[in-house]
């Protein structure tokens, strides 16, 4: 069983298609939606985790792409800009899953593990330097 976190980007026309339904039904994937915003008037976004066999995941992602949805496996819905981060660590107590963490206790440098991030977005208003932003 493999688990993969992906960011999907729908254009307006695709907002009405039941993509997730097909992922479950046709490709036998377990879906965990972290965050979605799909409205009739805007482009849509969805961040989800898919679990299943490697083959099913690959085919499922191909299916999504064939339907015109952009799938981004490298990027997630939350961005941490290392250059804007001042390494103060104010975000740390606002991250419930330790996706933002201290890399080295001596230097107290901050790191971000996007695989751990559940996109609760708590960190965004708690960063005084705008280092954390949401794609949508």
């Amino acid at each position, binding site marked *: 069983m493999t688990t993969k976190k992906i960011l999907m980007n729908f254009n307006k026309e695709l907002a009405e298609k039941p993509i997730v339904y097909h992922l479950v039904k046709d490709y036998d994937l377990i879906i965990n939606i972290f965050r979605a915003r799909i409205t009739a008037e805007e482009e849509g976004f969805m961040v989800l985790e898919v679990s299943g066999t490697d083959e099913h995941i690959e085919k499922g992602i191909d299916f999504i792409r064939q339907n015109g949805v952009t799938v981004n496996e490298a990027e997630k819905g939350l961005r941490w800009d290392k250059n804007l981060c*001042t*390494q*103060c*660590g*104010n*975000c*740390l*107590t*606002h991250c419930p899953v330790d996706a933002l963490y*201290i890399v080295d*206790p001596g*230097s*107290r*440098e*901050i790191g971000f593990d996007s695989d751990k991030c559940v996109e609760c977005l708590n960190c965004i*208003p*708690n960063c*005084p*330097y*705008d280092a954390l932003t949401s794609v949508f």
Partner: protein
Amino acid sequence: MKTYTEINEKIASGKAVVLTAEEVIEYVDKKGVSAAAEEIDVVTTATFGPMCSSGCFLNFGHSIPKIRITEAWIDDVPAYAGIAAVDLFLGATQLRHNDPANMYYPGEFRFGGGHVIQKLVERRELQLFGLSYGTDEYPRREIRTMFTIDDLNQAVMVNPRNCYQNYNVATNTSDRPIYTYMGLLKPQMQNLTYSSAGQLSPLLNDPFYQTIGIGTAVWLAGAHGHVYAEGTQHASVVERTENGVPAEGAGTLALTADMKEMLPEFVRGVTLKGYGVSLALGVGVPIPVLNEQILLATTVRDDEIKAELIDYSYDYPMKSGKVISHLTYGQLKRGDVEIDGRKVEVSSMSSYPKALHIAELLKAEIRDGKFLLSEPLQSLPRNKKMKSMVVREGEGGEV
């Protein structure tokens, strides 16, 4: 015993022995204080964090025809114009015109004085809008122009209060979240925030102001600047631990430097939800090792520096004086502390990695003979207490 002149001669010849306030701890442990005091010439200290009492004087030069600006906005952020014709003062916490502030609580405060100061140092283009009533020799009544820091005659940072010697630790015992300059404090004491570089912080390494005084050369965001006065709210008569280190706010520094020489990395606009805007600055201060006692003070470690835990939901605004407990930076930096048998998460408003980086940069400049020390022209006050505001009625009885 060394003198400033001797140390500066060593710096100029590239032979000065310089350590950061972090490195010096272990070094003195190993070598012993007398041997180390012979060897080490300078210890570099540093801090990086929000410093609200900051701002800058800007001189724009004269347009044709001339204007004597009476009201001004830079990127829509009001600047103080009650000085000469084309001089302005811009403060770090100034909100942008029409910012709804906390009208829709908690306000977002996306842009303000601190962000304008950051843009200036980044050499980005900004807009000046100025108004005037017009005079015979300054007939222009309105000006709107784009500019960068390079168009200005002077852009001088003049900060009334930086580098608080120590700072309290904030928490919230109430039942609702509160939004403060120490960040979001969750209800029922779920988190604490502190704001100090601890063992690296300038005035914690010179607790009785033996070397840091008015005239001391400092590294302000990469520029070579000075301490120009005691900082506002400087209070030296405070509770101190056995080693003389204050357990509360205490001393402060008023700093100035040329903004044209600053590095953007160390001049950062700050957004604090529900509170406002500010400016985070990086400051480095060299401490000359004139004698053993001065060196010993620089070996202070996080475990020996205490800070007061204050409830920002009641005791801070009401100035009740109540301190929940005392915590050391050693404890705070572990990420959680135990209070009343419960684990409470801790985070920081001050960046230790940036402070460390500044201490290293300053060390390199001194080693390379590029940064000379200056002997204070005047000491910082050592017998000063902080006054409170006494609210009193005027003669007519009105307040």
